[in-house]
């Protein structure tokens, strides 16, 4: 019996795996820059998270009686774990990475039906749960000045902690929020390490921006969500920063500090959990930009992408409902 196929009989050769591989490749410059400035901790996180993630994915697929090879090779779990690990602090110990990955893969992804059915961005869900449960461990960022050697980082990863106070560091965004009566410039001149840190973050963000633009050029996603997010975050920063430049972090601070570019091109472009139409993606991205600014500036968390993304994930179905494109030939 001949198998009948429905039209079209041609296929463009685009594959989900290709999309996932492109995303992985595009994240590499960011990963390398992060390692350069903050040490090998991030690399340990990435490798460990992917290992744990693949094991979990295989386990769940086996439990759900799905073909292992077929689904593992879609690469989606690797992307999720990579993005999660990039977002975690470089000095995150192994158990923190494990818990975050576990929550991302088991709870945020598979309990909702696996790839394509999860309403929340798994990486951000894993990140947020750890930020709430283990706030101290989640805010341990090394200063670029306290660069660890490979062995030191390895020890740290396995929880043989050294002197925490010596290496923890308030992130620049955090420092700009807690000015304690100083202006931003006074704070920066008093803390050269923050300036140094900000330089490092600038380069990391630039690396992610480059990778993101490459993905955009390869049409892995459209410009709508990242464009709208960067624009709304920039506008918010411009509006408030222009009024009180001494008290509010500037336009460029917001775009090039924290996880801005990683989020703009790698996190919020997750198609499964974002609004689906191009118009919807504009609203989705803009909403994230505004929420990020609000939480960064007036909230108690140093960065805000996890919460902003999860909140907008929640709104995505509603956005979809009200952002249907006009029918072809419909009169305005």
């Amino acid at each position, binding site marked *: 019996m001949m198998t009948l196929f429905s039209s079209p009989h041609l*296929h463009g050769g685009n594959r989900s795996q290709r999309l996932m591989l492109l995303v992985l490749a595009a994240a590499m410059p960011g990963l390398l820059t992060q390692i350069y400035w903050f040490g090998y901790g991030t690399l340990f996180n990435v490798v460990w998270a992917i290992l744990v993630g693949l094991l979990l994915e295989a386990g769940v697929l086996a439990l759900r009686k799905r073909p292992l090879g077929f689904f593992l090779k879609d690469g989606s779990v690797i992307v999720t774990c990579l993005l999660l690990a990039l977002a975690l602090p470089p000095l995150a110990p192994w158990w923190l990475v494990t818990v975050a990955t576990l929550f991302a893969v088991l709870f945020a992804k598979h309990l909702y039906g696996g790839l394509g059915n999860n309403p929340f961005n798994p990486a951000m869900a894993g990140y947020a749960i750890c930020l709430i449960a283990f706030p101290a461990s989640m805010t341990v960022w090394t200063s670029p000045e306290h660069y660890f050697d490979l062995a030191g980082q390895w020890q740290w990863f396995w929880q043989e902690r050294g002197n925490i106070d010596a290496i923890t560091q308030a992130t620049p965004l955090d420092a700009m929020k807690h000015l304690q009566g100083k202006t931003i410039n006074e704070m920066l001149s008093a803390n050269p390490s923050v300036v140094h840190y900000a330089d490092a973050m600038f380069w990391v963000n630039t690396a992610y921006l480059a990778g993101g633009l490459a993905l955009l050029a390869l049409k892995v996603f459209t410009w709508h969500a990242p464009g709208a997010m960067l624009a709304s975050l920039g506008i918010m920063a411009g509006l408030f920063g222009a009024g009180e430049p001494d008290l509010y972090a500037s336009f460029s601070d917001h775009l090039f500090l924290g996880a801005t570019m990683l989020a703009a091109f790698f996190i919020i472009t997750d198609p499964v959990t974002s609004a689906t139409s191009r118009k919807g*993606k504009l609203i989705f991205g803009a909403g994230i930009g505004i929420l990020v600014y609000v939480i960064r500036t007036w909230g108690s968390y140093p960065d805000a992408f996890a919460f902003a993304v999860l909140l907008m994930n929640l709104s995505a179905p509603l956005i979809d409902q009200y952002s249907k494109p006009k029918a072809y030939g419909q009169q305005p």
Partner: protein
Amino acid sequence: MRKLFDFPGGVHPAQNKQQSNPGKVLELPLPQRLLVPLSQHIGAPAKPVVKVGEQVQKGQLIAQATGFISASVHAPSSGTISAIDAFPVAHASGLEAMCIELQTDGQDTWHQDIGSADANTLDDQQIRQRMQAAGIAGMGGAGFPSSAKLATDKPIHTLLINGVECEPYITADDTLMQVHSADIIAGANLLLRLLDQAKCIIVIEDNKPQAITVMQQAALEHTDIEILVIPTKYPSGGEKQLIENVTGKQVPKGGIPADLGILCQNVATVKAINDAVYLGQPSIERIVTVTGNGVKQPGNYRIRIGTSVDYVLQQCQAETHANPVILGGPMMGFQLPNTQVPLVKTSNCLIVPDPQELPGKDTSMACIRCGQCEVACPAQLLPQQLYWLAKSDAFDKIEQYNLMDCIECGACAYVCPSQIPLVQHYRYAKGMVRQQAAETRQAEHAKLRFESREQRLLDEVNAKEERRKARAAAAAAAQAAKRAENPGAEDPVAAAKARLAEKKAAEASAPPKKAAEVQVPANHKDLKTAAAIVRTKLKKASKAFADAQAAGHDNTDKLQAMVTELEQRSEAAAKALADFESNMGLDPEAEKLAQVAWAKANAQVRKLTKAAPDESASDTEKSEHQTALTAAQATLDQAKAHLDSIKNPSQEAKS
């Protein structure tokens, strides 16, 4: 240089057009058997006008168009009609449809009526007639009857001739333009003549340089015909996409190109129009691209309508055992489940790909809503949402997402990274939506029918009531008139009242009598009534007594007495009735018989009255009927008199 617009979406699949060697028309030997479907177009199927065993000539009408949107069918060659029956036709499901089977005689002789004409001597009406008679249906694929398309009453300012041929592999139109450019231009001029005041644009994709050159040459002397080259992008040959590409305007939702003053025709259709008007030749052949790595002799073949796919593939030495056969292009064509089917007016391509060429799809993966389909969709839909809704059978909601605007071009499935057969899902959902709409229509229809029946019954009741009221009013009026005529007569109502008062006074003054004695019946009828009333009262009292006894009430002796009394009265009344009847010589049996006789006679009269011959009937008929009616009337009168006499013998005696 004309400014070009774009249309939303679209994809750029590999062209694969060169292997079918565009620009050269190959001929095939005439097949022995041709199978001509009656429905090769959109609209009503044609109706056969030949019989099995009949000899037909090439070009002879064998099935007549039925209705406005329909197209006639002609014998593609000379020979004998061997069957008119259902045969499998080219359809993805292997559907059967009515076809005329023709065994060719090899002579291929034209029918004597087929002849060329000088268009200059024909008037517009004659040109339209020749076009319509030729049974031309849109040869680009949709098969809309061309004469119906042309009969629009909307003003047309632009005639768009579609030589885009945007699907990969197909080169039939490309070849046609290279070989028959003069015919296309002549056909276009014919259409321009009919459309009056319109200009013509022939649109060709830039991947057909030879065709463009040839057509430009042919159109050189015609200032009102422009050859427009557009960039290659699938599906720019879709009617709506073509219009937007050229004019920047979208055909209104639910509308047709004529709403924008545009008429679209495919190049092959225009060529067929030329042949119909100038040569008198009906639509009995077309150019079909036969291609794919599974074909040893690919090319563009001129085939007769009704030629079997199998025959064509054999002649082209195609390897069909291991390979599928696709009718149409690789984007919108469908795989034939059976190659023993005829090619029709809309068949433009046969592809026999080898397994590497058009590999069957991998098992599809989960939709990750990446939105690549949305970017590719030329109908500006949200294919990813349509897919979810179709998969969850949310047919009400899917219509809000304009599923029915999907043109099934396949661009979404072409780009889908998860290899989901999206178009298949949409076809399924469209079928379900149509089915639901049909069911809703049926339910609505049934409801309307029920409501109108209720209304009709109500109207009947009302009309009856009206008639009754009218009769009553007429009677009252007659009564009043009578009184007016005879003012001395007493008012009957007042008189009745007076009588009643008198009676009451008499009753009051007279000593109370026994009921049986009081009710001295005046006549037979009253006696009967009295007896019945007493019987009923007795029945009721007996029942009340029995109930009271059963319930164990006290004072049942009173009821007992009443029953006894009523029993006596009933007996008395029955006796009085019997006495009266025997006195008067009444016989209830005879009365019944008389009643039946009367009813029969009455029925006879009514029947005859109803069956009265109308004006056109002959005098004899009329007089016969009159005699019968008179006789029946006499019988009825007699029966009536007899019945009356039995009922009321005293009256008879009196009169």
